[in-house]
C-alpha cells in the first residue's frame, strides 16, 4: 500500500517543525499519520516512511517497535486500550476490563471475529483524575467509565 497524498501532506507539515537536515525527527509523527490511515504499520509501510524521510528502514522500524502505541499487526476497526495502572486499578478498572471482555468475547490482544474490536491493556495515560478510562484508536479518550457508560460509547460507534 502506498502512502496517500493526504498523508504525505501531513508528513510535510510535520517536517516544517525541524531543520531541513534533520528529516528523521519527523519519523514518529509520520508513522502515526500512516497508522491512522491504514490501521496498522506493515513492514512495507514502515519502509516507505523511511524512504520518504531518506533514513535507513531500520531507523524507522526501531522507532515503530519501541513505542507502545504503534501497531505492528492488524487490529480491529476500533482498538480499545484500557488503562489498568494504579490510579485506574484503585477505581476498579478491573470491572471495566471484565465488562468489555464479556461483552466483546475477547481478551487483551485479541480481535473480534467480525474485525470490529481489538482490546489492549495500556499503561498510564496521564488522565488519572478521570479513572477508570480507555482510549479508542489512540485518539478518543473516555473517562469516568462505568459498565453502562461503556455500553453507550460502544453503541455510539459506527458499524
Amino acid at each position, binding site marked *: 500500500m502506498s502512502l496517500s497524498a493526504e498523508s504525505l501532506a501531513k508528513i510535510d507539515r510535520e517536517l516544517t*517543525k525541524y*531543520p531541513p537536515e*534533520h528529516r*528523521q*525527527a*519527523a*519519523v*514518529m*509523527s509520520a*508513522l*502515526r499519520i500512516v497508522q491512522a490511515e491504514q490501521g496498522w504499520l506493515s513492514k512495507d509501510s514502515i519502509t516507505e516512511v523511511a524512504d520518504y*524521510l531518506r*533514513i535507513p528502514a531500520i*531507523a524507522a522500524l*526501531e*522507532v515503530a517497535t*519501541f*513505542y*507502545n*502505541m*504503534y501497531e505492528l499487526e492488524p487490529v480491529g476497526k476500533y482498538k480499545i486500550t484500557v488503562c*489498568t*495502572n*494504579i*490510579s485506574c*486499578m*484503585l*477505581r476498579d478498572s478491573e470491572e471495566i476490563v471484565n465488562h468489555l471482555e464479556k461483552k466483546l468475547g475477547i481478551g487483551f490482544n485479541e480481535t473480534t471475529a467480525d474485525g470490529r474490536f481489538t482490546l489492549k491493556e*495500556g*499503561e*498510564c*495515560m*496521564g*488522565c*488519572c*483524575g*478521570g*479513572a477508570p478510562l480507555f*482510549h479508542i484508536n*489512540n*485518539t*478518543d*479518550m473516555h473517562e469516568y467509565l462505568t459498565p453502562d457508560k461503556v455500553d453507550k460509547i460502544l453503541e455510539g460507534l459506527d458499524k
Partner: protein
Amino acid sequence: MTGTQTLVCLRTVGQEDPASLATYVKLGGYAQLRRLVTEQVKATEIISQVKLSGLRGRGGAGFPTGLKWSFMPRYFDGTKYLVCNTDEGEPGTFKDRDIIRYNPHQLIEGMAIAAYTLGARVGYNYIHGEIWQDYEIFEAALDEARQAGYLGENLFGTSFNFDLYAVHGYGAYICGEETALIESIEGKKGQPRFKPPFPASYGVFGKPTNVNNTESYTSIPWIMEHGGQAFQELGVANSGGTKIFSISGHVEKPGNYEVNMGISFVELLTLAGGVWKGRQLKAVIPGGPSTAVLPASAIIGATMDYDGLSKAGSSLGAGSMIVMDETTCMVKTLKRLSYFFFEESCGQCTPCREGTGWIYRVIKRIVDGQGKLEDLDLLTDVSSNISGRTICALGDAAATPVLSFIKQFRPEFEYYIQHGRSMVEDGVVVQEVAYA
C-alpha cells in the same frame, strides 16, 4: 482564589472558553512578554527574579529553575533550543494535561520569555502520546499565538525571533526523562543519554538546550508580573510558589488542585473531598510511584512541600498524590506498579532491564500464592542493586515502591506469603489507620 486554591498555572480554569487567546489576554496575558522584549530587560535581571522566586522543577526532580537557566551558554554561534516536557506518564500525574488544555497560552508565554532570556531560537513542547485531543488544543493555541504575533520573527518590532512547535509522543514513560525526550524529538528510540554532557551544552540536535517541565514554564509569566519575591511568599522556605497536586485513587473528588506550597496534607485531602465512601485512609504515595509510599500515620501531620514530605520520609515528586483506603491490598498494588516499571524499562542498562523483570516475577509469584518468606529479602536485594546503577532515574524509580512498600507494610506481605491470599481480603487489620 477558588476555595483554598491559588490559581497561578491554572489561572484560566473556570473562565468561559479557557484555552482561547482572547480569554488569556483579557486576564493580562502576554503583557509580560511584551514588556520584557520591548523594554529589552536584561537576561541577568530575569534570571535573578526566577532565582528569587524559589521555583523548582515541577517535573519531579525539584532542581532550581533559575539556576538551570544560568547553565545555558550566553554566547553560542548557532541555534539554541528550548524544550518543554509535557510527557507526564508517571502513574497518578495529570497536571500538565490541564495546563495545555485549559491554559495553553500561559505556557506559550512562559516559554517565549524563557527563549528571550536564554537566546533560544526554536522551542518544542513534547506532549504525552495518549492525550491526542489535548495535543490538538495546544496546536490550535500555537496557531492563534503565531497569528497574533506572539511567536515568529521580529516579535513586537524587535529583533527577537522565536518559533515554537508541538511534538507528539507515542507511548513511552521513559521519554519523561529529559535526554530520552531529546532523543525522541530527534526521531529515535527514547533511550537516555549519558550525562555529562548535560542538555545545556549538548541537547536537541547536539545544540545547547534548556528543558523544563510544563508547570515550571507556566509559572514564569506570573513571576514576571508580580516579582520573584511575591511568588516565593506564596509558598514556604525552600518551596516557593504554588503547586498543582494531581489527586487520584480513593478520594471523593479526584482532580487537580493548585494550592500554596506548604499546605497541610489534611487540608489538601479535604479539598479533594476526603477519603471516599466514608472509609479510612491507609496509605498515600505523595508524588507518584517513584516517591516512597507512606502509611496514613506518617503523612497525616505532614505539610505538602519539598522539606515537609522529605521529613515525613518521602518526597514531593511531581505532586501526584495517590490515595489508598483501608480496602487496598498493598501486595497486589505493588505487583501492578512493578509490572509498569518492567514494561517501561527502555532496556539499555542491565540492572534495570533484568532487575525490573525479576522483581515483577517474584511479586507475581507471591500474589499467585507461590511466595516464600525469603522472597522479601530477595526483592529488597534486587531493588537495592538497581538503584544508583543505571544511566537514568527509572532504575531508582522502579526500586522505590518495592523498598518502601515492603518497609511500611511488611506484615501484609508476610501474611500473603504464609496464607497464599490477601490479608485485607481476609479482613485482618494490623496496620493502624489514622484518618477518618
